[in-house]
C-alpha cells in the first residue's frame, strides 16, 4: 500500500526547476483558444444544467501548474474545459503559468497590492502559499450560491485551518511527498529515511527544495508530528541533519521538479520527491523507479483554486470552479492527472469514466494510507520567514 505509482506534477520547484523544465513546459504549454465563434453556438448546444452560470459571462483566465488538467493530444484541447465553454458560454483561457509558488507569487503580488489586474481570474496555489494569499487579502470570497458544488468537496478537506469553511479556496488536488529510487541501482527499494541516507547512496541523493516536504519528512522521521505545534529546536534539529548530510556529501543537490531528470540520467539514485513525478517517469521510462511513503510518514498537501482580489470577472471564475466540483467532471480530470481527487462522489463517477481507476488508492486513498500522511502545520508570517531563512541557509543560499 505504501508503494505508489501515480502522476502528480510537482507542487513546487525552484527557479532552476523552472528553467530546466522550460523545454518540457514548452511542449505542454498551450494557451487554449476558446471561441472560434464558439460562445454563442456553444451555449445553444449545452444548455442543460447551466443554471448557476447563467449570470456569468465574458472570459475567465486560469493559471495552473504544468500537466494539471486533462488534455487531448489529438485535438490539442482540454476536453473538460471545452465542455465548460460549451455548457456555459463563458470563454475560458488556460495557462500553465505556475512553476513555483514563491516565484509566481513574487511576480504577481506587487500588482495584487496595488489592486491591478494580474491577468488571471483563477489561480492554483499549494496550501501553505494559499494560506498566505488568504491572509494577505489577495483573494475574493466565494459567493456560496454561485458555487453549489462546494458540497461535493471531501469533508476532510473542507475545514483546513487557513480557510475554515472554505470561503476563499477549494482543493484542486492532493499531493504526497515521499521517497523514490532507481530500481536498477537499488533493487531492494527504500522503506525509511535510514535507507535513503545509507552510505551506499552517498553523493547520489537529492532532496526537494520545498522546505515543508524535505524538512517535514526528516522531522517525521525524527519523531516530530509536523501537523501539531512543534518547537524551533525540533525544526532546527531537522535543518541541522539536512545541513550535515549536505556537508558530508550525501546530498548532491537540493532542487525542485528537476530531480526527475537526474533520476533518468542516473546522476541521482535516491530522492525525496513527489509520487506523481515518479509515476509520470515510469510511464515514459519503462517503470524504472519506485516510490514509497516512508514508514515514519509522508507529507500531504493540496493545491487550491482561488479567485485573485483583482479579478474583474468573479462570476465567471466561480462558474468555472463550481463546474470542476461536479463528480463526473472531477473523475475525468483525476483519470488524467491521477492525483488524489478532492471530490466526493468522484469515485462512483469514475466507474463511468475509467473502471480501472475506481480502486486506485493513489486517486482515492484508503484509510490506512491517510494515517501515514501528515500536513505540515501552518506557520505565522514571522515563523515562515525565520524557518525559510534557516532552510535556505542550510541548502547554501546564505
Amino acid at each position, binding site marked *: 500500500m505504501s508503494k505508489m505509482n501515480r502522476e502528480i506534477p510537482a507542487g513546487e520547484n*525552484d*527557479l*532552476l526547476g523552472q*528553467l*530546466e523544465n*522550460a*523545454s518540457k513546459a514548452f511542449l505542454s504549454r498551450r494557451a487554449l483558444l476558446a471561441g472560434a465563434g464558439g460562445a454563442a453556438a456553444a451555449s445553444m448546444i449545452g444548455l442543460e444544467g447551466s443554471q448557476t452560470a447563467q449570470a456569468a459571462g465574458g472570459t475567465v483566465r486560469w493559471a495552473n501548474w504544468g500537466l494539471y488538467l486533462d488534455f487531448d493530444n489529438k485535438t490539442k484541447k482540454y476536453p473538460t474545459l471545452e465542455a465548460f465553454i460549451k455548457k456555459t458560454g463563458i470563454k475560458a483561457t488556460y495557462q500553465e503559468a505556475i512553476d*513555483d509558488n*514563491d*516565484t509566481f*507569487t*513574487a511576480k504577481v*503580488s506587487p500588482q495584487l497590492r496595488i489592486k491591478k489586474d494580474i491577468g488571471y481570474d483563477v489561480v492554483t496555489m499549494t496550501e501553505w502559499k494559499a494560506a*498566505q494569499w488568504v*491572509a*494577505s487579502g489577495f483573494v475574493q470570497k466565494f459567493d456560496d450560491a454561485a458555487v453549489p458544488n462546494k458540497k461535493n468537496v471531501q469533508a476532510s478537506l473542507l475545514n483546513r485551518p487557513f480557510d475554515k469553511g472554505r470561503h476563499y479556496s477549494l482543493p484542486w488536488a492532493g499531493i504526497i511527498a515521499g521517497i523514490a529510487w532507481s530500481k536498477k541501482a537499488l533493487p531492494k527499494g527504500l522503506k525509511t529515511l535510514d535507507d535513503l541516507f545509507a552510505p551506499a547512496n*552517498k*553523493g*547520489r541523493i537529492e532532496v526537494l*527544495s520545498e522546505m515543508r516536504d524535505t524538512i517535514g519528512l526528516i522531522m517525521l522521521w525524527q519523531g516530530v508530528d509536523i501537523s501539531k505545534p512543534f518547537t524551533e529546536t525540533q525544526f532546527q534539529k531537522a535543518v541541522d541533519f539536512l545541513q550535515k548530510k*549536505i*556537508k558530508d556529501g550525501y*546530498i*548532491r*543537490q*537540493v532542487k525542485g521538479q528537476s530531480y526527475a531528470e537526474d533520476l533518468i*540520467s*542516473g*546522476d541521482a539514485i535516491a530522492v525525496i520527491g513527489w509520487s506523481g513525478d515518479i509515476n509520470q517517469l515510469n510511464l515514459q521510462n519503462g517503470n524504472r523507479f519506485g516510490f514509497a511513503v516512508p514508514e515514519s510518514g509522508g507529507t500531504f498537501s493540496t493545491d487550491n483554486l482561488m479567485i485573485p482580489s483583482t479579478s474583474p470577472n468573479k462570476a465567471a471564475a466561480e462558474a468555472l470552479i463550481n463546474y470542476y466540483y461536479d463528480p463526473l467532471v472531477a473523475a475525468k480530470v483525476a483519470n488524467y492527472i491521477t492525483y488524489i481527487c478532492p471530490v466526493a462522489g468522484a469515485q462512483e463517477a469514475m466507474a463511468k469514466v475509467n473502471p480501472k481507476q475506481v480502486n486506485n488508492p493513489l486517486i482515492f486513498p484508503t484509510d490506512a494510507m491517510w494515517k501515514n500522511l501528515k500536513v505540515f502545520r501552518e506557520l505565522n*508570517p*514571522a515563523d*515562515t*520567514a525565520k524557518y*525559510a*531563512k534557516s532552510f*535556505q*541557509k*542550510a*541548502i*547554501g*543560499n*546564505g
Partner: protein
Amino acid sequence: MAAVVRASGTATSELKKKSLVPYLLLAPGLLWLALFFVAPIITLVGTATKTPGAGIGEFIQTYRWANYWDALTGASAQFGRSFLYAFIATLLALAIAYPLAYGIAFKSGKYKNILLVLVVAPFFCSFILRTIAWKQILGQNGPVYRTLLDLHLISSTTHLTASVPAVIIGLAYNFLPFMTLPLYGSLERIDPRVLEASGDLYANAFTTFRKVTVPLSMPGVVAGTLLTFIPAAGDYVNAEILGNPSTKMIGNVINAQFLNTQDYPTAAALSFILMIAISIMVMIYVRKAGTEELV
C-alpha cells in the same frame, strides 16, 4: 599653427555656444542612464535598509544600514566563492581563448570568418540549454564520465557534476566568446611588419611572441578578462545547474533571498555590495593594467 591660434582667438563666443552641443548629444544617453540605472540603484540602496512589516514580502523603511553588514557577513562564504570561481574561470578562459584567437587571427587563412562564426555560434542557443548540456556531458551516463571510468582514472563513487570543477568549467565555457572576441580584435590589428621587424632584429619566434605579440594584445586581454570576470562573478545559473549546495555563489543567494524567502532588503543589500565589490576590483585592475588602448 598660427592659423589655429588666430581662429581660436576670434571664435571664443562661438565655441561657448558650441560647447552646449556635446551635452545635447549626451542628453538621451544621460536620460536613459538616469531612468534605468541611477533611479533603480537609488531604489536598491533604499530597499536594502528596510525591515520586515506585517505580512510576508512587506517591508517598511527604517533606514537600518546594518542590513548591509548583516547581508555581507551572512553570505561571506558565497561572496568569496563567487570571486574565486570567477577568477579561476577567467584564467581558464584566457588560457583557452588566447591560442584560439591567435590561431584565428594569424593561422586560419580563408577559414577566418567561418571560425569566427563558430566562436559566436553557441549564442544562437539558449544559455540555460548550453549549461544543461554540460550536465549531460559530465553526467553519470555521459561520455566524459564513462571514458574516465573505463580508464580507471576515477572510481564509480566520484561524480563530475554537482562539483566545484563542473561549476568553473561551466563558467569558463559560457563566457569564452567574451574572452575570445576582444583578444581576436587586438591580435588581428597587430601590424605584421612589426613582427617581421622583430625577426629582423634576431628575435626568435618565442621572443617575438613574448616581447611583441603579447604586449600588443594587452588591450584585448584586459577587455576579455573584464568581460568574463564581471558576469561570471554574478552568475548563478552554472552554480545552480552544475553545482551542489556547497558551491552556491552570491547570485544564488540573491535569487533565493528574492524569490524564495522574499527577503528583499537582504537581496538588495547583497546586489549592491556585489556591484561595489566588482567596481572596486575592476578599478584596481584597470589602474594596474592600463586602459589607454582599450576600445
